């Protein structure tokens, strides 16, 4: 049952990811990415990490992608010029990145397959390792519980958490400075 659900959604997510990359239309790409995010939420649910699943939908699908659609709508890039003319010089870098990513992925897969440490990667067959990457030090049963996530976030990961919020604040300040400057010149 669990495996069937996983297989169906894995197929959908891979297909959506492929279409996301292959589409010429920016709006279609964004929509396929949203579909992909939903598949990831399903994977989190299968691993028992309900909190992460809901956050995945709320933050990525509900907030970030809506802003992306906003940008696409405002710039009205419905049928843009082929990007290979503008960004063609980036193509070799893209190939290199893809190869490096594939090697890393294969390496992690192999390591988890024959490794002694089952918690490197969560596997569907073994739900007890659920969401081990995200919440190391938190038992799998508690991975879905908000209290446990909060406790880990505000004790063990307090410093990265605060640094991230400073980073976001800097981005907001930067954006408002840019807007202000343009308003003065206009």
């Amino acid at each position, binding site marked *: 049952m669990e495996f069937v659900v996983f297989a169906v959604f894995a197929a959908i997510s891979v297909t959506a990811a492929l279409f996301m990359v292959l589409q010429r239309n920016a*709006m279609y790409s964004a*929509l396929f990415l*949203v579909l992909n995010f939903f598949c990831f939420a399903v994977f989190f649910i299968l691993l028992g990490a*309900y*909190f992460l699943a*809901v*956050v995945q*939908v*709320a933050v990525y*699908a*509900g*907030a970030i992608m*809506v*802003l992306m*659609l*906003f940008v*696409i*709508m*405002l710039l009205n890039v*419905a049928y843009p010029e082929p990007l290979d003319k503008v960004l063609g010089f980036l193509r070799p870098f893209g190939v290199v990145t893809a190869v490096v990513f594939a090697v890393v992925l294969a390496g992690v897969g192999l390591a988890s397959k024959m490794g002694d440490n089952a918690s490197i990667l969560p596997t569907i067959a073994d739900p007890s390792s659920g969401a081990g990457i995200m919440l190391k030090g938190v038992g799998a049963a508690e991975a*879905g*519980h*908000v209290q446990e996530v909060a406790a880990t976030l505000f004790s063990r990961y307090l410093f990265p958490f605060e640094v991230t919020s400073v980073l976001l604040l800097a981005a907001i300040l930067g954006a408002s400075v840019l807007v202000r400057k343009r308003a003065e010149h206009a």
Partner: protein
Amino acid sequence: MPDETIMDGLFGLDGATWDMILAVITALIKAFVIVNGLLLAFAYMTLTERKVLGRMQARFGPNRVGPFGLLQPIADGIKLAFKEDVTPRQANFWVHMVAPMMALIPALIIFAVIPLGPEMRILGQPWTWYVAKINVGYLYATAIASVGVYGLVLAGWASNSKYALLGGLRASAQVISYELAQGLAAMTALVLAGSLNLYEIVNQQVSSGLPYALYLPFGLIAFVIYVVAGVAESNRAPFDMAEAEGELGAGFHTEYSGFKWSMFFMAEYVNMINISALATVLFLGGWWPIPTDAPGIIQGLGPIVFLIKIGAFMFMFIWLRATFPRLRFDRLMSLGWKVLLPIALVNLLLTSAVVALWPLGVWPFAQ
């Protein structure tokens, strides 16, 4: 759940498998009832709205089809179902078709986590008034609600019309802005309850004997902010900038007709019901004052109390529409960002301080 001695071994399946199958069937039946109930409520909400608006404007409202106009929604439905469904030639066909679904489906599935009544036993069998009780219930509701905005954005974009595009942009900017104030106001209730589980939140209010809206003053402030933001969230008057008839045609659904058009309306009304239900759960104590551990008959009144509270909210939605003029868009944005958001934030901070200083469940300012 089935008696294991009877079901065990039937068709070669053991008791645990039968339990699972029955749980799935129960959930499916509940989902069927809820979806159809919501759509029926939508149909008669349109009639109620037209009649109440009529009375408030010193006229009758629809009263020709059937007794008291009670068959009017059915006539409207048949008309809409057989109306020609036009897709503009310049529109993006697929996105134009998917947009109404992306608006309606999230609205319908939020109700799965709403606990309508206390857990009880009917004829000795356990019975629950919700489809799912998950420990991130409130977050589920907000996450799904935030997905609903896709319907508006995509409808505005796919129609390839300036009115629709402006309407879609306005709608999504408004929904995103008011989500913040709404979430912070809701968090006041979540902090008071110490849980995200909607059933637990109601349970705490019922057992403490006081709904969170009466946890003066912070609970009341949060409640008011939640409701105001909720009205804005559902794009209703006086916050219906997205479909301001005078300036934008019909806003994001200008280029829609027939059944797709009515799907946007279903989404709007079902969202109103969802916001009312969530406000009832978070601030009005759900089935309070019905005690959770009362005998079965009295417990059965719980869902009725809950539905009456939702009905009161829906009446308020209509009343607001009949009373207030529409806000200008910049006023609407500054109300959301400069008034509601700061108040909700300070309110949440003070509530958290009180909850941290006093033992859980004790509210020093009550009475």
